[in-house]
Every structure is written in C-alpha cells, then in structure tokens.
C-alpha cells in the first residue's frame, strides 16, 4: 500500500515533468537548438546522484565499487563537460548583439563610440 502510493506519486511527478519539458522547450528558437541540446544533455548527468546514493549504501562488494566509481566518473563527465561546452557556445552569442542591439533608431553610424 505504502509502496503503491510512492509509485503513483512518482508517476504523477513524471507525467507533469514531461509536460513542463514540452512547454518550456518548445519556445526555444532554432538558432539555440545546439546549445539547448548540449544543455539538456548536461542536465541528464543528474544520474550522478544515483551513483552517489547507491555507493553510500552498505554491502557493495569490490567489483560493485569499481562499477560505481566508473558510474560516478561518467556522470561527472556528463555534467561538467555538458555545462562547460554549453557555456562556451553561448558566450559567443552573448558577445555579439552589443553593437547591433542598441541600434533601434537605424544605422546612422557604425563607429563604436556612438553612445545611445
């Protein structure tokens, strides 16, 4: 009974998270799809938590410990690599709009000194 209610609660969370995923992400413009893919890729590195939880339980044998260390390393690569690469990609987007963004009155001058 208790187990069943844990399951149904978790399934409800699962379904709602799926809908949130659809709604939040369908708004992303085409140009940002590669960074988005990389960013979501980093987020599923959260599976690292699974490794941290299981390694903390008592009763793991030597071989299991090796497996778990590899799993933790994999999860860490997924997270660290994913966020860093996404950040690198996005930094490029950030630096660009500066000259053009403020330029809503038209392109009278393209000197960089043109204060708004």
């Amino acid at each position, binding site marked *: 009974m208790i187990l069943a209610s844990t399951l149904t609660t*978790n399934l409800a969370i699962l379904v709602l998270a799926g809908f949130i995923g659809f709604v939040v992400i369908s708004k*992303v413009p085409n140009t940002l799809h590669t960074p988005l893919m990389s960013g979501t890729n980093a987020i599923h590195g959260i599976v690292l938590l699974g490794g941290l939880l*299981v390694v903390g339980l008592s009763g793991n044998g030597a071989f299991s410990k090796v497996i778990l260390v590899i799993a*933790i390393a994999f*999860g860490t690569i997924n997270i660290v690599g994913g966020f860093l690469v996404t950040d690198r990609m996005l930094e490029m987007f950030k630096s660009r709009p500066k000259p053009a963004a403020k330029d809503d009155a038209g392109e009278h001058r393209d000197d960089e000194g043109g204060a708004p």
Partner: protein
Amino acid sequence: MILASTFLQDQSFLDVLYIVAFALFIQGLRGLSGPTTAVRGNRIAAVGMVIAIVATLLNKSEGNWGLIVLGVALGVAVGVPAARQVKMTAMPQMVALFNGVGGGAVFLISWSEFRLTHGYSGVATYVTVFSLFAAIVGSVSFWGSNIAFGKLQEIIPGRPISLGSAQQIVNLVLLILAIAAGVDIAAGDHSQGVFIGLLVCAALLGNAVVLPIGGADMPVVISLLNAFTGLSAASTGIALNNTALIVAGMIVGASGTILTNLMAVAMNRSIPAIVAGGFGGAGAVAGAEGAGEHAGTVKSVGAADAAIQLAYASRVVIVPGYGMAVAQAQHAVRELTKELEQRGVEVSYAIHPVAGRMPGHMNVLLAEADVPYDQLKEMDEANPEFQRTDVSLVIGANDVTNPAAKNTPSSPIYGMPILEVNESRSVIVIKRSMNPGFAGIENELYYEPETSMLFGDAKSAVSEITAELAEL
C-alpha cells in the same frame, strides 16, 4: 552540531533542496529561449545541479567519501579538458560522447543495484521493472552514442554499415532477447549471468541500430539518444525514489523528443525511417542514376572572376555549410564580408535549419567568428529575398541548396525544405570537388547556367577572393 547533522539528514530537507534544484533547471531552460538570457539560463541550471549534488552528499553523509572523491576527480579530469579544447566544428560528436557517458552511468547504476540486492530480492516489482528498463535503455544509449561519435569523428566510416534486409530482424531479435532477460529477472531469476546477458543484448542493439544509419541522419540520432538517456535517468529516479532524477530526466526526455522531431521535419525524414536505416545507401543508388541524366556542363571560375562578380553586386547572400565549418573558414568568410561591406555591398547569411549537421550549429560557428546576429537569416526569412540577390555565395553547402528537393519527385530528398539559391541572379559555389554531399546525391544546382563553381578548399578560396577584392 548533532542538531545540524540530523537536520541535514532529514528527508524533507533533501526534498526541499531537490525542489529548488529542479525549479532552477526549469528556469534555466526558460533562459535558453533567447540569445541574451541563454548564458544565464545555462548557469542557473548548473547552480541547480550543484545544489542537487551537495544536498545529496550532505544528506547521505554515511556515503563512501573516498570512492566519491575518486569518481568525481576522474570525471573532472576527463570532462573539463575535453569541453575546453573541443573545436566548435566537433560539437555534435562531443554532445554524442557526453550523452553516451550519461547512458553508461545509468546502466552501471542499475547493475550495481542488481548486485547489491542480490538480483532484486526483497524489492518491489516496480523498482525491478524501472531499474531493468533503465539498464536496457542506458546501455542502448551508451553504445549507440559511441557509434555516433565514431561516425562523426570519422573513426568509423560515415556510410551505412548494415546486414541488409536481415538488419531489422536482427534488431528485433536483440530487443526481444533483452526484454525476455528482463522479464526473467523480474519474475525472480537472481542469476547475474542473465543480467549481463541483458546488458550485452542491449549493447549489441545500440550498435546494430546506429551502424546502418548514414552520417546525414546522425544529429537526429544523437538527439533521439539524448531523449533516451533522459528517460532512462527518470526511470532510475523511480527505482531509487529520487524526485530530482525523475524531474530532470523526464524534462530531458521531453525536450529531446521535440528536438528530434524538429530536426527530422527540417530534413523531411520520418523518425521511424531513420531508425530503420539505409538512407545513404538508397541515396547513393538514386545519385548514380542522377549522374547519368546530367549531360549538362559545369562552369568553373577562378578567384579573380569571383571577386569581380561580388564587388559589383549590390546584394550578396552567403550560404554556409558544413564544408565551411570543416575548413575552419568562418573567420576568412567574416573578412570577406567586411571587405564587401566597405564597398557598399549588402551582405547577409542564409542559414538552413540543419546547416552544419545540427540545428543552430552554423549560428554557433559564425558567432565564433563575430558575425553580427542581425546578418543571420533563417530559411523562411532568406528564401523570399533570393530573387533580389545578385550573387549567392555557397560555401561548402550542398544538399540544402539542391533544387531537386523541389523539382524532382523521384529524388530521395524530394520535399526537403531548401534554400532557393537558384532564384538569385548568379550563384558561386565554393567546393572541393564534384563529389556528392552527405545525402550521396547529385546537386542539380551545379549544372544550372547561372552557376559557376570555384573548386578548392573553402578557407583558401575565400582568402583568395578577399585578396583579389583588395586589389580591385
């Protein structure tokens, strides 16, 4: 001190921090919806991740610290340099690799759960089922991603490698065997051999599914596998009763599905057809037929003539493709653009949704070369303007400019949205040779009377044009 430690180990404290973490994930993904907020969005998601990890470590402080530190240190030692040093052109395979290790972590965790509980004895059936699902999908994702990486990195040939018509039967048999092993374990078989058999079947399946897929479809496959890894992480979350894993994994599963669909639509391919494989093979046959039809001549042009054409144009559209990216020509292209703009030529870039093998990949590459954001035109915006364009400069793009997608119903790419460069007054194509592109088919554009071909490496060809322009 004791109070603090019991507080940290309280389940509700952990749950609250998990809620904070996944709220940050969602907020971060919302930030990714615009170029100006995207950097912050990514960092917000990263902060969420740090909170989730720290909360887990504090809460389960009886954990084996030595092993955790070892694993994390290994991961940082591999992940950080890889992420720092990867070239922007190699981004798709890097994403594949990072996705693969995520899948690897998932199936290894399932395996350790199996071992710890002596074959899932004494756990609820649903825990077993979700853990086994995670094991199968994680393993498929790990091996499939590695093959995708190998193909894009050209360690493995990009062309489809398949068993022909037997392929789908083999895939089906592997899937059935993996599921059968899972059912056997769930029904109470505690032998580790069966579990390893399950992992092996899933591993073979991952290889067998991705190997027959041609290079052109690879981004769609990576995106699909990204969604798979997300789902398997969510499944692990249900097995471990961990909310953060469920929410984060499922959001990735949903986003990956959307992205996969968007990419498939942009390429006019259906996801089942891609997974069934063999596009490159079919395309090569059609290409061979197409080559026979073209008795037309190809007009070749030198850098000096190309420079003159460009210099006296009033409007130039640059169509960059993966060839430009591979040659690292984006900076040279930016120099050419500057030179043309000084002469009063209006220059813009037309970006096909799948240019550079992944949606948005080309924008990233051009951003790296400081091309202003407002010069980049999406396909829908660019197409109506080709008619009033004097010169379209196609640099290393092929299939996305092929008029056969509009005119030739028998072509395998018929129906794919293209950049209509053939509408412009003249076209200059910079290309290394007449070899067909990723889809393995002939490009009719090259035989059109208004098209001239400039053969050579994209970077040196563009630099030569720029040098010629400076002398005009």
